[in-house]
């Protein structure tokens, strides 16, 4: 866990939790205050709920990766590369959802949603490579 890649992933994991756990509280507050800017837009509610969920789950995934990476991916170069893919995916996906709910249209998210499939692709690659490396080890 002492290499640079896993350390960065660990930091990012905690950072995502620090950001997206309070987002949950914020969403609850928006409900409590019955703010139309949030409640009247089904699309915004969905996008921000997804941002909250993905941010936290991917934060936890980063933490887990940091703990098990050295054992699962013995090769240092591969581990660094996979960690990079994972970090990009973990950032792009929740932020894509969040931005998709900013200036969104009634039936579609805003352009920010374009970050989500990109992030998803990064994550998929990271996970496939991790699974492959773990299988090979």
């Amino acid at each position: 866990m002492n290499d640079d890649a896993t350390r960065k992933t660990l930091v990012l994991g905690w950072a995502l939790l620090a950001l997206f756990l309070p987002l949950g509280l914020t969403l609850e507050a928006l409900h409590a205050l019955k703010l139309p800017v949030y409640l009247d837009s089904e699309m915004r509610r969905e996008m921000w709920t997804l941002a909250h969920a993905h941010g936290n789950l991917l934060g936890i995934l980063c933490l887990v990766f940091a703990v098990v990476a050295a054992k699962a991916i013995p090769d240092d170069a591969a581990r660094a590369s996979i960690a990079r893919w994972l970090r990009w995916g973990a950032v792009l996906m929740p932020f894509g959802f969040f931005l998709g709910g900013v200036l969104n249209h009634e039936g579609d998210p805003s352009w920010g949603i374009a970050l989500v499939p990109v992030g998803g692709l990064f994550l998929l690659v990271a996970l496939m490579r991790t699974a492959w490396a773990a299988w090979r080890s």
Partner: protein
Amino acid sequence: MKRRLLLLLPLAIPSLVVAALVFGHDPVEFDAAQPWIHRTDDFVGSQTCRTCHLDHHDSWERTYHRTMTQRVTPETIQGAFDGREVRYEGQTARVFRDGDRYFFELPDAQGRREAEVVLAVGSRRYQQYFEREQHDEGFIFRRLPFLWHIDEQRWLHLNTVFLGPDDANWNKARARWNDNCVFCHNTGARPGETHRVSSGGQRQFNSEVAELGIACESCHGPGRRHAESERSPVGRYTTYAGKRSTRDIVNPAELEPQREIEVCGQCHGQRLPVDRAHLAAWLQTGPTYRSGNDLTDHVIPVVRTTPSPTEQIPDLFKLRFWNDGTPRLSAYEYQGIAMSACHAEGTLKCGSCHTMHGGDPKGMIEPEMRGDAACTSCHTKIAQDIRSHTGHVETSSGSRCLDCHMPRIVYGILEVHRSHFIEIPDAARDAETGRPNACTLCHLDRSLLWAARESRRIWGDAFRDPLHRFDRAPLELPDATTSLLAGDAVQRVVFASAAGRPGSDLTPAEKTDMRVALAVATGDGYPSVRWTARRSLLALEREWDTGLSSLLADWDHTAASTRTDMAYDLLDRMASSAPPIEGAPSVLLLPDGSINMERILALLDLQEDRVIDIGE
């Protein structure tokens, strides 16, 4: 091997999703497959609109437009089908349910029969019920004789809610849904007249609608081409980027005022097909008007001078308007607003005050347009000094824009609504044409002569004295009392309603004449007048309890045989309980507190003999 299989896991979830989409429940398909529903003429149904317009669908879903026509389920039925008996003019019906099915047991020529309720129309003030009559080559939805009054939680025979005299014929209001209600209480109506008469001698229909109730496509037009053109995300995001305009759908908010009011006017403005060809189309494939069209290419909005299509009722349309041409029944709001200078010479349209996607579903008025704001948002100078414009203190109802310029003079099934003809009150015109005047609807103890002189004092010489009253009653008499006794049925119901409305500046004692006139109105030959008089008397009793409440509450106003006794009973009690108060001169009580029957009878004699009988 097992490890390799694990690698297929990422493919499993998408495969399950695809399978669920292919084999799972599809609300759009489900709606389209329901009985009486069509998907022709480019109608697609509100479930399709919901896919993209979640918020507008949600806000529409709250409205009474959506629930205007509904299939019968325990969730949609509001009436108490609890086995009770409901009476009208010596006959009895029984309303009951059997599981999730609802029935009327009705008297008929053979004795009794059961009619199963299959359709419910209305959900705000009252709910009407329809049975299905199956014929050789079609079916008819036939209106059943009682409706459920939601506020009062009671059954009422239809003969007693429309503006007509007592009539013991139970079947008088047994209207046919297929070529009446279907048009405006549904979306994309296709009456489907077969042009073949059944063996029972009935016209036959195979009616369908795009959607039960008033849904998206009633106002936005059929949505198929729009839904198809917006299906591609590339197309949609091109639109969002401003590189392409949204096509193939009408947004009434973006229409110019005349086209916009026509969208609402297609239903909120009684009309006739423009010619026989259009009438034939109406009865087979439905109205030809679509949102954004010029309405007058398709229909002729009915006005006071529109010739009656039937010789038997030459005054068919004339009776629906006050003598000066102002609509006096609901569902003529289009005609009212079209006559108004704010629209004809300005930019006023329905959406200036109303919203289909916000505010209180009752009235559907923009929250920020409630009350005076509806007018002062444009008439800003008046708003700066309301008192100098109105001649009334700011807090008075005389300073409320709508009470003077949109008075409550329009009858619609047991309620009196605001006129949508935005006008300047004119006591001389109103006296001479026999229509209610905004001033005397509030100043219930004042005459039209007084109103004309006060108008002249406050607003200048444009206001002259009336030469006479339309009903030939003395000009000096209080208008409300006089109209309640000498007016026609619509005048009587309008003033009976005004008498019980809160907000009058009169003390309860000053309303003595109104109480006496209302007591006389409980003996009226029109059950809707009796209903309104009874309700207003009960309201006045809440202000000043003279011991009449229980008598009125227990009285069934629909029983024509009791009306005269009730009126005399009330007058007797008033004579003994409400002596004239000093400083509150009365025209219907004598100085000793007895009822001035001579004057009452003289005013009643002035009532027109002409029977007004206006169904829905």
